[in-house]
């Protein structure tokens, strides 16, 4: 493309939106190759990077006589990964089409699969699960789908890969597709109104149905993977209709004008900001307008209701804002509001609670034991907590809860925690952000678990969480 037409394209192009997705699958299913293929075919790989990869591929004799480029080398960035031919850690990659900018997390599939899949899926709008067409749905596939259901990933796309190795057979594909849909039904995935489930035949190595529809799978009439990724609504988009505005306060912006002239940004009239006070944060859910009624939730206090007097962002005043915008809110009443408080649409939040029932994805080699003292980070607040009991561990292949009194690395279980301060906890099923928390080791500060808030057993227990 000449730079002239490119300049014209850039002029007329609509602003692109951002879409985050992750890959999941067992070792050798072709995740890295698929990612490399997407990057390569969408021309996100620049010549010097491709040269380096081609050199290394040749050095290692990739593709035998025929030669070729090992596209997996594009994502395996650490020395140990390239040497061992495996992916150790989540790698983030970027590419863009005319419509969208993509952030993609390539998640390794070996022993640490739960840890990596949970990490990649927690921020993803979609997850692409790979299946080797020769192997079909494995126990690992069931586990991955189960984790994605638990994390409420909006779009799950199953790529039946290496379709070239089964002679592009429709019957092999249909059989795997039926198995996937069966697992989906068992899980409620794709039929719960929260997520959808799509199955696509691909060859990551050759590129069939990755960027363009393939002529070698005439029996498949659906879209290629990239077409799907370009058109699916992002999770924030799906949730922007929710009336449940949520805004965890990060910090208070209070330059104090003439009282502390040095705290006001250079070039501003210090006198004008004498009484300025705003609450900075990122909208985690829903939207807010000037004049909206909101509740300020402070642990240990009754909710206080006021109205939104202004929405500021770096010198401009907004009429409305929505997730995931970072803004500063001014309130009509002079409440004492601090970091860790939450501002929410009035009347939409249940009472804060110090009893936390949750599903925990255990991510640390240090096991969880009943009675353990931990920290819970929820929104912008971190509180001490004690683990009251572990009520069971999920068998990810049968989706049943088994008895267990401790959780080990990569286990997903149910537990009850007692918090040192009541928090505005919400069911993760309906609130991806305010229903999520971290469990942190108070001794070394490491992240121990990803937590998903469940309803109290006495409340309406949601069946989907009883899996």
């Amino acid at each position, binding site marked *: 493309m000449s730079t002239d037409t490119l300049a014209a394209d850039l002029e007329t192009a609509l602003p692109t939106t951002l879409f985050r997705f992750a890959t999941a699958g067992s070792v050798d299913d072709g995740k890295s190759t698929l990612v490399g293929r997407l990057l390569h075919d969408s021309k996100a790989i620049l010549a010097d990077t491709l040269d380096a990869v081609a050199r290394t591929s040749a050095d290692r004799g990739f593709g035998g006589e025929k030669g070729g480029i090992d596209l997996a080398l594009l994502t395996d960035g650490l020395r140990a990964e390239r040497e061992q031919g495996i992916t150790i850690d989540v*790698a983030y990659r970027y590419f863009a089409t005319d419509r969208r900018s993509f952030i993609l997390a390539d998640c390794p599939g070996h022993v640490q699969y739960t840890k990596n899949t949970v990490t990649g899926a927690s921020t993803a709008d979609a997850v692409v699960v790979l299946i080797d067409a020769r192997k079909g749905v494995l126990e690992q596939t069931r586990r991955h789908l189960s984790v994605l259901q638990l994390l409420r990933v909006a779009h799950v796309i199953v790529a039946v890969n290496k379709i070239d190795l089964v002679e592009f057979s429709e019957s092999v594909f249909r059989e795997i597709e039926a198995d996937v849909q069966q697992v989906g039904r068992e899980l409620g995935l794709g039929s719960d109104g929260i997520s959808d489930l799509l199955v696509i035949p691909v060859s990551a190595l050759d590129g069939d149905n990755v960027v363009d529809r393939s002529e070698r799978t005439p029996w498949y009439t659906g879209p290629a993977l990239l077409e799907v990724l370009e058109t699916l609504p992002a999770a924030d988009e799906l949730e*922007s209709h*929710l009336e449940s505005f949520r805004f965890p306060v990060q910090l208070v912006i209070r330059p104090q004008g003439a009282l502390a002239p040095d705290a006001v940004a250079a070039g501003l009239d210090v006198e004008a900001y004498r009484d300025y006070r705003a609450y900075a944060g990122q909208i985690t859910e829903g939207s807010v307008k000037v004049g909206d009624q909101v509740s300020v939730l402070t642990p240990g206090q009754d909710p206080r209701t006021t109205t939104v007097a202004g929405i500021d962002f770096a010198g401009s005043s907004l009429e409305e804002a929505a997730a995931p915008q*970072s803004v500063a809110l001014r309130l009509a009443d002079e409440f004492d509001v601090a970091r860790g408080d939450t501002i929410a649409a009035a009347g939409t939040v249940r009472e804060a609670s110090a009893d936390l029932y949750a599903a925990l994805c255990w991510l640390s080699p240090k096991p969880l034991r009943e009675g353990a003292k931990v920290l819970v980070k929820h929104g912008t607040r971190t509180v001490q907590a004690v683990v009251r009991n572990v009520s069971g561990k999920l068998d990810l292949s049968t989706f049943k809860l088994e008895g267990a009194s401790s959780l080990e690395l990569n286990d997903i279980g149910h537990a009850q925690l007692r918090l040192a301060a009541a928090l505005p906890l919400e069911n993760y099923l309906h609130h991806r952000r305010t229903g*999520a928390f*971290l469990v942190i080791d108070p001794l070394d500060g490491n992240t121990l678990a990803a937590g998903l808030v469940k309803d109290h057993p006495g409340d309406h227990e949601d069946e989907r969480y009883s899996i």
Partner: protein
Amino acid sequence: MSTFLTEETQVTDAAVSTRLSSLDTLESEAIHIIREVVAEFEKPALLFSGGKDSVVMLHLATKAFWPGKVPFPVLHVDTGHNFPEVIDFRDRTVERLGLKLVVGSVQEFIDSGELAERADGTRNPLQTVPLLDAIQRNKFDAVFGGGRRDEDKARAKERILSLRDEFGQWDPRNQRPELWNLYNGRHTVGQHVRAFPISNWTELDIWRYIERENIELPGLYYAHEREVFARDGMWRAVGEVSQPLPHEEVITKTVRYRTVGDMSCTGAVESDAYTVSDVVVEVAASTLTERGATRADDRISEAAMEDRKKDGYF
């Protein structure tokens, strides 16, 4: 509880009609991270070299705290081999925003014998020691960097909040999982955290943002005439610390810089991009990565960046 189960079905008329653009989403994410670090750490600082990524970082920080002032100092690790116009830009920017500037000097460490000049004359890898020294002496517990994951394979594996031990080392095989937008910055005494709020930005995002926000940059990012000579397949500027060898012919070319680092290892590219919108077009059409095109220090080996990062580099 009942309110929760019904709200899914209610559609609010306040539904925001347009989706945020990718730049707005990236900006909001970065500002959220900057505010988290300021709220949770005692003494943060921002690495500021006058390079485009650090200029964008500082711009984001001014937006994050408006109308308040940026609540942390900026830190520059001075190789002593800087482009004079970049140092000038650095000082003007710090002055304009009324910030405090802390400088760690590679030259001082060489003069005192604590560091030795490398055979290839490159000083970029020498920045690690003065950087860690400045962090320790000023008791910074969080340091903002403008690193982006699209810059390099090793950076692609870096967390947004990245824990460093007492020796400033990065352990890529033992990183904390980063979940949702909940960042865990807990650390023990002696450890510190590197924060990378623009991890998810690409080079093109940076330029589009510079264009959109009308952000001033040092002039050498735009096409200008300069005396250069060819070395290692790059155009190197003639300067005090960057002298041509007898066989290297000096010519005048219209060039610009894609990265601005140590004068002894940063090369220019031939370019007629005189304005920011010219640069956006040029970057969009480029077939080389910015580091591959212009950084001798990253050409040393496939794992050059990973090795430097493990030792405590940016």
